[in-house]
């Protein structure tokens, strides 16, 4: 992406609070106009700090942040024109819902009639049209959340930041709100930068996801890419469920490689993040890509001892001991013709070499 295409641009941004450790290390990130980008990562990975720097509440220690081609390093927060949804909504408790929404319009000296109209439109957008006179405390968590979203959008900013906005909601409401936010984004075409530690949330809503760890973006790509083709062991571990097998690279041939596991088993794998023979590697393997009683065409054929069966309705989680790893999980779809499995049983398993990624070792 060319520099002038990017709507939001982080350029070599670094952040330190104490002058000794970097919370954000050399961040480079371009976000296009209208894009929904999620910063995903465990707590302490630097994602919220990035958002605060973009909003202007924390200065970048080094580097530049551009908004619409302009450096905003020295622009105070109230002049950036960025809407923001906070973790606990930060709705002003002493104002009614309508007053909360009118606030950004009033500080922009908008006329009373126009303010009223926009507030009503924003409330209707989040289906809270009749709640304008209530105090935030009189609303449920989900309703408060919607008010917070409406308030961040009511003054029609081009960029909206969301800092774990769904963290305080229960699971069902969270899922519902994910779709609502996604639809509002699609309807308004506003650029959204979203911070969360919940990977489902990130995968559901985003155009692109930036996986943060240790102040560095580990991978920036679409949800599908992240899951299907993790670039390193951290991303593979963090996104979705993952079986890990440790071994040493024996042979590299193009995009394929042969790995000798620590117990001596030889595995054919896709070469992703290994460079030389003799290097230690961790193989990443999604549980749903493993077959019990595999067809002969699968390159990797092993046996496993079933240690535990967990019935989950749509599928059965089978924990087995494979090649010395007793945390090896296989997901078996719950089909009518499924084979009966018992704990302690020895079964044949297999997988395609393309589903088994040879990555770095964490």
């Amino acid at each position, binding site marked *: 992406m060319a520099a002038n295409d990017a709507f939001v641009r982080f350029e070599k941004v670094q952040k330190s609070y104490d002058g000794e450790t970097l919370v954000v290390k050399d961040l480079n990130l371009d976000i296009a106009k209208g894009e929904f980008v999620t910063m995903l990562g465990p707590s302490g990975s630097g994602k919220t700090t990035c958002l605060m720097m973009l*909003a202007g509440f924390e200065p970048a220690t080094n580097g530049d942040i551009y908004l619409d081609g302009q450096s905003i390093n020295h622009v105070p927060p*109230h002049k950036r024109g960025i809407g*923001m949804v906070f973790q606990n909504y930060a709705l002003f408790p*002493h104002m009614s819902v309508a007053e909360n929404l009118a606030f*950004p319009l009033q*500080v922009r000296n908008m006329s009373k009639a126009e303010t009223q109209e926009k507030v009503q439109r924003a409330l209707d957008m989040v289906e809270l049209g009749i709640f304008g006179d209530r105090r935030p405390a009189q609303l449920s968590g989900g309703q408060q959340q919607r008010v917070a979203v409406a*308030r*961040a959008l009511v*003054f029609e900013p081009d960029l909206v930041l969301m800092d774990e906005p769904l963290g305080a909601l229960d699971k069902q409401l969270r899922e519902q709100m994910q779709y609502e936010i996604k639809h509002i984004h699609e309807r308004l075409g506003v650029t959204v930068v979203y911070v969360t530690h919940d990977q489902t949330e990130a995968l559901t809503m985003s155009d692109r996801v930036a996986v943060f760890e240790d102040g560095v973006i580990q991978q920036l790509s679409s949800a599908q890419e992240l899951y299907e083709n993790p670039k390193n062991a951290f991303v593979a571990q963090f996104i979705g469920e993952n079986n890990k097998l440790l071994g040493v690279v024996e042979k590299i041939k193009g995009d394929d490689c042969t790995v000798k596991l620590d117990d001596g088993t030889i595995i054919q794998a896709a070469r992703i993040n290994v460079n030389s023979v003799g290097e230690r590697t961790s193989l990443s393997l999604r549980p749903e890509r493993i077959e019990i009683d595999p067809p002969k065409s699968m390159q990797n054929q092993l046996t496993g001892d079933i240690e535990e069966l967990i019935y989950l309705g749509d599928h059965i989680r089978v924990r087995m001991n494979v090649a010395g790893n007793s945390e090896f999980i296989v997901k078996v779809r719950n089909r009518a013709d499924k084979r009966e499995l018992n704990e302690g049983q020895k079964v044949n398993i297999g997988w395609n070499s393309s589903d088994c990624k040879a990555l770095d070792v964490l």
Partner: protein
Amino acid sequence: MRILIDCRGKNMTSTTLDQGNTNADGVLLTSDGIPLKQKLVQTTKKARSRAFLLTLPLVLFLIISFVVPIGQMLFRSVHNPAGTNVLPNFAVAIKNWDGIGFPSEETFELFVKDMQIARKNREIGKTVGNLATRMNYAIPGSRSLFTSTSRKLSTITEGPYKEALFKIDKKWDNQIIWRNLKRVSSDYTIAFYLAALDHKYDDNGNIVAAEELYQIYVSNFFKTLRLSAIITFLCLIIAFPVSYLLSVLPLRTSNLLMILVLLPFWTSLLVRTTAWIAILQTQGVINDILVFIGLISDDGRIQMIYNQTGTIIAMVHILLPFMILPLFSVMKTIPVSYMRAARSMGATPFTAYRRVYFPLTLPGIAAGTLLVFILAIGYYITPALVGGEDGLLISNLIAYHIQKSLNWSLGAALGTILLVVVLVLYWLYNKLVGIDKLSFG
């Protein structure tokens, strides 16, 4: 035993009949057939009586040390039985006098005989001295008339008593004395409230303003209110930024600062007040420094203590923690995200502060000002030590009447008025701010 079994049986049938566990009146029953409410009271009775027992010592303490004394004070401010105690028979008789001319001869006889009995009486509250003191409040200077007459009264053995009395002292030949005696002969009087409000009965029994020289109480009430308001305002001005700082600093630093705020709390009030004397007096630290750096001449030393200034400075210092603590506890609960949200929506720092932060601190401001104002309005020690003549507050006048002049009824009347003023302010406050919005942290 038999009866018990019978009852059970009956209850059993009734529950089996009423499927929904309600009896004929629609009262909800438990599965054992006891009304649900009754059962609930039974099961929670123990916990409730235990809770009550836990508060019992405090309740008793409050009744003995708070409710009873205040009740006594209210009572004493209108109740002064000196007249009826000393002159019981006369008091009854004089009620029939219409206040014109002199009372009847029989009334004079009763007066003389009651006085003769009172002369021999040593019972507390029933001596001639008690009556003389009470009359002296009504007619300043009349005390000696009673005490001296009482010594000579034994000479009178038979009528006509009126002439005999006038012979002992010519002053008795004065209707004003008898009118006041009639008023004093009632157990209950509002005379002390009149005095506390700079009014009195004139010689004809009308309520009039007291002589200008004696009008000290109303102006002192207003002075007390004004000084308390100034002190409260100064406390607020000083405490607000400090509390804000305390609320935003990291915990370790803010704890340290908090100790500094509380340190004066743990020092004796007397020590702190005397420290102010050392600092503020004309030969004190501040004046010495000002003279030393040449800002004022040695003759021009500033009088900063033993006046209202001294009272204000010392009391602001002493009452400051009462403002800081509620403010701090409220500010502590205001998340930083509110200000950030306001800023992100385009508000300048000042607007964000004015429209979001400040309104949220109002409960703390309300609590702090109420606390400081009510403490200030009744403050005694500090104004007594550093107030001089000018800086005395109403509580000092109350103390004077309780300890020095021993006119307890007047002291009680002043105290009651102060109590009423505070209650009225509290009521006003509730109307304006709402007591439920207060937060003392």
